[in-house]
């Protein structure tokens, strides 16, 4: 809140659907993405030798033929890089040294004068493997019969909130023990128990990963790349190389979609490692779409067992959950997804007794990264179907059941934290109304069945407790404003939000504001990472603080020059005005050059540069045995989606006819962009519900291309997607805002599954709900007749 505004008013352009600041350069083809940057003739190209085996020992690597190929400038293997790396658990080398753990695991890298020569050189590298038995199922992997994939797990460096079990494949075990679950079952009028298997899927940004790395003679590293987390990359690379963070510069132009896969460090480390052997020459590594499918972060698979019970009035009494996360060959983000799904494992409900065990398990699958929702879509897919089943079991309407149980401000959450005010009930009612809940609509043809489904969700930003943001607001000669942030715009619109907040807090028109791009860790202020839907809230707080700081500097200057009190001054539309003297002066005259004192007595002021930062200070640790603690997370965004679907009885094809989303965003800074997030997330969720699965067979990916990894196209989406904004303010959010980027794909699969059930009375099981799966389920259930004869 700016000092001169009453608490209730919201200054423009907060709440205005201003046009994206990057829209024009994106539609004219001028916006630069990583692959568009020009490096001149000195640029070298890297390609990577990768493991064809899901699990094997490396017996021998011979790079001599590759080294001898004309045009090759460097060949590197794990031998040169003994250090371990990893975000929460340092369990991987940049290049494999003695063992490979997934198909695509990097074994060696080449830099050459052309991509084609680098490729030839990769083919000339000889690697001898001794294949080992693999682990391809997380539940099996967690048992003592499974081969141990990381024998040195006990020696790995690990953050203090992650609990690996050395001697097993369990890289994290997170527990919740709230109340007394065992005692509660006997009081339940109904209990349901279901297991779900969620497949691996991938983020599929349309822009593949690109990294260009340069290592100077003096060891300074510059990295240009597709990055959601330039500062996290700077930090991890500095640690891995044992150099100062100030000697690593990460430059991150526009990102062509991230959804989590461009967070942290993945293929960038390979580019840096190769470039360390080509001193002074930049090395470019771009993943092919096939490599993207094989080797980029995946949304890890999951096996979930739910048991939940309620009393005769429909009050949830107990939940018992076991989650086995298929973390893949190395854990990277997986261990924290395991934790996040644990501390949110009740779903958005008030449940007195909860027992959860969430395991992250090493497997010989691709590496689990963060993906839009960070474990929540996977968890809610099963949980929200169970909620429907439980409602059914006591013959209660699923909306009513959720209304009774959904989390409210003041509730004691599954971790012991007290819930802040939230608009989940409002979301539920509005979504149900919008989908005409309870009104059956006739199908469009006799061979079709129609159904409606609803699902609720919650999600907290899953992040380090002290993940922080900073921002700078600088004024230019003409009064325009340059906002510098370290958070990335990956399409969600964070640059536009930053501009709106700066304009509002400073008091200038939105078109006076520019956002400094590209992000560059040498010039941009620190930002933890562009993940967890945290930028509007956290970076927004920093931007608002920086703009208020600049505003204060300007007001102090003018107050002194005019001999007035700050309280009588304001900045409106780029002019400083005095409510007392009715004087006015444009910022353009004072922002850089200051103001002259009367009678030519000199000058006061100087370039205005506001600074601001934000760090939550209140998040506490959780007890390792019980998962209990005063405050597990900063806040929860809650919401509901409802869908109407039609199932074709002849083919099993599911058509989503319309969708509704209602989310409590605290305050919509830019309502149209909030709605765009709700729509985009809905369709992404729908795409995962109907089409998406990385088909892994004994660790080998069967569909590494768009030909067979299908995502939703224009032919699959309903035009009728309603987005409803609910605003229960966040106490520490800028103008009350909290994030919504990820949340809109969290309940979608469950809502669609519930709608399919409503249509045909069958729980189809694991997504995706392909026509085949639905049809065969209908055949097996006797709903349609298998052809006879």
């Amino acid at each position, binding site marked *: 809140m700016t000092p001169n505004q009453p608490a209730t008013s919201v200054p423009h352009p907060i709440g205005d659907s201003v046009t994206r600041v990057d829209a*024009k350069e994106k*539609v004219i083809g*001028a916006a630069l993405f990583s692959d*568009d940057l020009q490096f001149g003739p000195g640029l070298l190209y890297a390609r990577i030798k990768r493991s064809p085996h899901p699990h094997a020992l490396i017996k021998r690597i011979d790079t001599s033929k590759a080294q001898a190929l004309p045009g090759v400038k460097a060949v590197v293997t794990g031998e040169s890089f003994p250090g371990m790396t990893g975000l929460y658990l340092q369990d991987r080398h940049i290049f494999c040294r003695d063992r490979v753990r997934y198909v695509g695991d990097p074994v060696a890298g080449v830099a050459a004068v052309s991509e084609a020569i680098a490729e030839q050189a990769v083919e000339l590298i000889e690697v001898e493997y001794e294949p080992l038995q693999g682990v391809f199922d997380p539940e099996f992997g967690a048992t003592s019969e499974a081969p141990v994939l990381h024998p040195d797990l006990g020696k790995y460096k690990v953050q203090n909130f992650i609990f690996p079990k050395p001697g097993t494949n369990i890289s994290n075990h997170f527990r919740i023990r709230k109340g007394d679950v065992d005692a509660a079952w006997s009081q339940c009028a109904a209990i349901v128990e279901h297991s779900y298997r969620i497949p691996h899927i991938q983020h599929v*940004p349309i*822009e*593949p990963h690109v990294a260009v790395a340069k290592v100077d003679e003096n060891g300074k590293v510059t990295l240009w790349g597709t990055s959601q987390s330039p500062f996290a990359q700077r930090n991890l690379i500095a640690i891995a190389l044992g150099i100062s963070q100030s000697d690593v510069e990460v430059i991150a132009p*526009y990102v062509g979609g991230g959804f989590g896969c461009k967070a942290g460090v993945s293929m960038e480390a390979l580019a840096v490692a190769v470039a360390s052997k080509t001193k002074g020459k930049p090395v470019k590594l771009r993943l092919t779409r096939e490599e993207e499918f094989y080797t980029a972060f995946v949304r890890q698979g999951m096996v979930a067992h739910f048991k939940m019970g309620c009393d005769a009035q429909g009050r949830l009494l107990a939940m018992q959950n076991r989650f086995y996360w298929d973390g893949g060959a190395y854990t990277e983000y997986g261990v924290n997804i395991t934790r996040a799904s644990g501390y949110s494992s009740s779903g958005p409900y008030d449940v007195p007794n909860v027992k959860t065990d969430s395991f992250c398990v090493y497997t010989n699958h691709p590496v689990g990264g963060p993906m839009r929702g960070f474990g929540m879509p996977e968890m809610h897919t099963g949980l929200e179907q169970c909620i429907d089943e439980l409602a059914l079991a006591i013959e209660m309407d699923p909306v009513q059941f959720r209304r009774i149980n959904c989390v409210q401000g003041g509730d004691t959450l599954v971790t012991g934290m007290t819930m802040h005010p939230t608009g989940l009930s409002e979301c539920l009612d509005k979504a149900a109304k919008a989908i005409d809940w309870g009104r059956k609509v006739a199908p469009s043809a006799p061979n079709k069945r129609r159904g409606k489904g609803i699902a609720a969700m919650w999600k907290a930003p899953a992040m380090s407790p002290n993940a922080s943001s900073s921002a700078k607001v600088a004024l230019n000669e003409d009064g325009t404003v340059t906002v510098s942030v370290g958070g990335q715009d990956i399409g969600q619109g964070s640059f536009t939000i930053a501009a709106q907040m700066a304009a509002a807090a400073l008091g200038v028109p939105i078109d006076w504001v520019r956002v400094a791009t590209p992000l560059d860790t040498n010039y941009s202020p620190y930002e933890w990472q562009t993940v967890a839907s945290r930028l509007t809230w956290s970076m927004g707080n920093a931007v608002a603080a920086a703009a208020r700081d600049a505003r204060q500097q300007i007001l102090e200057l003018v107050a002194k020059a005019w001999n007035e009190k700050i309280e009588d001054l304001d900045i409106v539309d780029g002019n400083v005005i005095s409510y007392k003297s009715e004087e006015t002066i444009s910022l353009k005259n004072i922002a850089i050059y200051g103001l002259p004192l009367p009678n030519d007595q000199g000058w006061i002021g100087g370039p205005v540069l506001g600074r601001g930062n934000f760090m939550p200070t209140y998040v506490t640790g959780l007890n390792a045995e019980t998962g209990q603690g005063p405050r597990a997370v900063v806040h929860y965004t809650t919401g509901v989606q409802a869908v109407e679907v039609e199932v074709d009885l002849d083919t099993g094809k599911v058509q989503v006819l319309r969708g509704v989303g209602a989310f409590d965003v605290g305050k919509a800074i830019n309502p149209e962009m909030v709605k765009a997030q709700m729509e985009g997330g809905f369709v992404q969720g729908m795409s995962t519900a109907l089409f998406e699965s990385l088909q892994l067979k004994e660790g080998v990916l069967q569909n590494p291309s768009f030909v067979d990894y299908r995502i939703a196209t224009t*032919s699959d989406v309903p035009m009728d997607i309603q987005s409803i904004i609910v605003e229960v303010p966040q106490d520490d959010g800028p103008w009350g805002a909290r994030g919504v980027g990820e949340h809109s794909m969290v309940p979608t699969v469950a809502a669609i599954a519930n709608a399919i059930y409503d249509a045909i009375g069958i729980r189809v099981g694991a997504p995706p709900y392909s026509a085949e799966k639905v049809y065969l389920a209908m055949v097996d259930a006797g709903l349609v007749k298998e052809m006879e004869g």
Partner: protein
Amino acid sequence: MALHHITLTVNGEFEQVDVPSQMTLLQMLRDKLALTGTKNGCNAGECGACTVMVDGEAVNSCMVLAVECQGANVVTVEGLAKDGVLDPVQQAIINHGGVQCGFCTPGMLISARALLNRNPEPSEDDIRAALVGNLCRCTGYVRIIEAVQEAAKRQKALN
């Protein structure tokens, strides 16, 4: 590796380029002519990010050899705006919030422009069909389809 000397028109400019046989139109645009607005998303004709117009027809530029473009008239996203005035499809996609990350946008706009050139009054299904080869992971397509509908109307009003 034989080099072929080709001449063609790109966004109204006459160009001469020496290209090896295996160079795609996409590579030539990006690497030889520095027209990086056209994107490489899959290099296999599946995602549509590289869509350009060749002789008025939308085509995946990763699926065309540069050498096949001798004498062709190529239009890329950089050639849509005329004298600083945005094409109606560009303006409409901004107005409808149909741009997020922006990586699919160039191909999407070219597909839309080619559609409106051959069919100035497309139905919703015509638009879906014209854009089905342009994958977008951010927007969910609805705002893009609406933008093309608006562009068609606006174009009709202008003509």
